[in-house]
């Protein structure tokens, strides 16, 4: 049969193309445009090549912020993934407890970032916050405004509180999809609780864990709102992450060129790291 060509089909994908163009391609290209030019106002632009990129990569400010980002994501993943698995393992599999647990787990996910920031900012205040005041009354020195450790601790606790649920829900979905017969077979074999986890539950959760890991990495690497609301990047520069630095540079100092170059580098780092995680994790899957 003759293959029929119907070019009208292209019109069908046009809306998507337009949407993607406006939401992703055009903004991205604008950023690329800024990153290779310099301006002194008056809408006059001068070609600057890779100058901004080398400036950003040469600055200590950038590398320090990147270090903070990596440290933060590392801590977040190290806490949230094991904690999420642990909670998911202990959630009820059937009965009245299931909807209750699921709703409780979903609640933090429904709260917007800035609200979470505000909640914890007030919660942790030494003068009026329940947590801050209680700790102060107990004689424990805690002040996220001027103590670097306390500021980090607050950010980490906030993120764990906000996002562990996501890991829990993903793991739980992986766990309930395991047929009961697996547990029976393990019981007949006389396998220990650890063996059941190691050889049945963990391999069966592998795919959802990969997704949880990637989502939590990308999200925590893009952290902005919480430190912005809590301390605005302080005390000092101790919680100035890449995103905060970027906004300071772009909007605070209106250095559009360096900011554009930095955001592109930032974007490429996330892309690269996600790709590495994904490849490593799916490869180890294929080898097994």
């Amino acid at each position, binding site marked *: 049969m003759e293959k029929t060509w119907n070019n009208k089909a292209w019109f069908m994908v046009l809306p998507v193309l337009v949407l993607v163009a406006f939401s992703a391609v055009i903004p991205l290209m604008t950023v690329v445009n800024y990153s290779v030019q310099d301006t002194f106002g008056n809408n006059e632009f001068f070609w600057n090549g890779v100058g901004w990129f080398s400036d950003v990569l040469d600055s200590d400010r950038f590398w320090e912020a990147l270090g903070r980002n990596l440290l933060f994501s590392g801590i977040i993943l190290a806490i949230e993934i094991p904690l999420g698995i642990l909670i998911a393992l202990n959630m009820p599999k059937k009965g009245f407890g299931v909807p209750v647990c699921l709703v409780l787990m979903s609640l933090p996910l429904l709260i917007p970032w800035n609200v979470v920031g505000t909640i914890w900012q007030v919660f942790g205040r030494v003068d009026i916050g329940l947590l801050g005041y209680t700790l102060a009354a107990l004689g424990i020195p805690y002040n996220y405004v001027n103590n670097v450790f306390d500021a980090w601790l607050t950010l980490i606790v906030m993120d764990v509180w906000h996002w562990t649920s996501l890991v829990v829900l993903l793991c739980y979905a992986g766990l309930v999809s395991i*047929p009961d*017969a697996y547990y*029976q*077979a393990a019981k*007949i074999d*006389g396998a220990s609780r650890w063996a059941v986890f190691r*050889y049945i539950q*963990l*391999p069966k959760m592998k795919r959802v864990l990969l997704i949880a890991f990637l989502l939590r990495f990308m999200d925590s690497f893009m952290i902005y709102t919480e430190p912005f609301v809590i301390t605005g990047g302080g005390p000092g520069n101790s919680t100035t992450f890449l995103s905060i630095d970027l906004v300071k540079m772009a909007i605070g100092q209106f250095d559009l060129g360096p900011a554009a170059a930095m955001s592109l580098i930032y974007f490429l780092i996330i892309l690269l790291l996600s790709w590495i995680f994904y490849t490593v994790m799916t490869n180890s899957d294929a080898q097994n």
Partner: protein
Amino acid sequence: MLELKDITKVVGADTHIHPTNLVLERGSLNVLLGPTLSGKTSLMRLMAGLDKPTTGTISFDGKDVTGVRVQDRSVAMVYQQFINYPAMTVYENIASPMRISGKDEATIDREVRKAAELMKLTPYLERTPLNLSGGQQQRTALARAIVKNASLVLLDEPLANLDYKLREELREELPKLFAASGSIFVYATTEPQEALLLGGNTATLNEGRISQFGPTIGVYRKPTDIITAKTFADPPLNTIELTKAGNVFERQGITVLPVPEHLAGIADGPYTVAFHPHHLSLTRPHATAAPLKAKIIISEIAGSESFIHVDCAGSRWVMLEHGIHDIEPDTAIELFVDTRHLMAFGADGRAIGGSAGRGA
């Protein structure tokens, strides 16, 4: 010898198993035959020790094991789903029961290779179950059951998820595999055909009750009640409510069937008369076969056989006929009942007189 004594299982308001007594001999193959939800799996779980019976005792070789945990008994089980450790290789999967029981490495290696050879898995030992076909996955599960050398082997519809050809192949091998071990072998299935092919003993189950237990062919030929006869019939058993009056079975005063010789001795009165679909035919199979008028409902062609659904004397029957018979619906036909194989059941469902002997 596994002995179930007055076993019941009640979960909440549901009775899964009604009082059951069953004795299974060492080295025997026992089929649990019954439809879905008839209690096959519940009964197996009780035998294995995965569940504790609500009442009654279970003993093994005369020793009471009712409260003994499953891991402390010698039990192996294979399921309808293909259950293997997903991240382990086939080799490690087969070795897993022996590793837990602490066998030495040389023994493990020897046993794994033997079982793999038996189950034709040798080329796949280094693969994980995800990279195997369904048949190979189930062979792995079976190999795990074999190396365990358990005294009770429970197979819960192990072939149900396999394709036809593999099913036939494995079904043939299974009894041989376990025959040498001297263990008690329990095989659950929903298919009467499978029970007949496996042989051994069969217990027919229905709504949590064992209706009959004995040598498979005996249960098939001589069902003691109508539930057993229905459970053990595929396509479904044909039945009709008739009244015996002298030498005829009649319905509202109209003669339907002559009373065959083997039922001549039973008292006059109402009976449920039943026979298998292959005792109904389009041509007279035997001089004594009784002709009946019927109307075609639908004909289904299954390769070289036809399942012809008919409306006859107010009952819906199935006829299993060799060859292809594609008859239009609503066609009026004459069909023949081989009365030598009629079974008669009383109002309580028990088989009456010599009828049972003719059920085949």
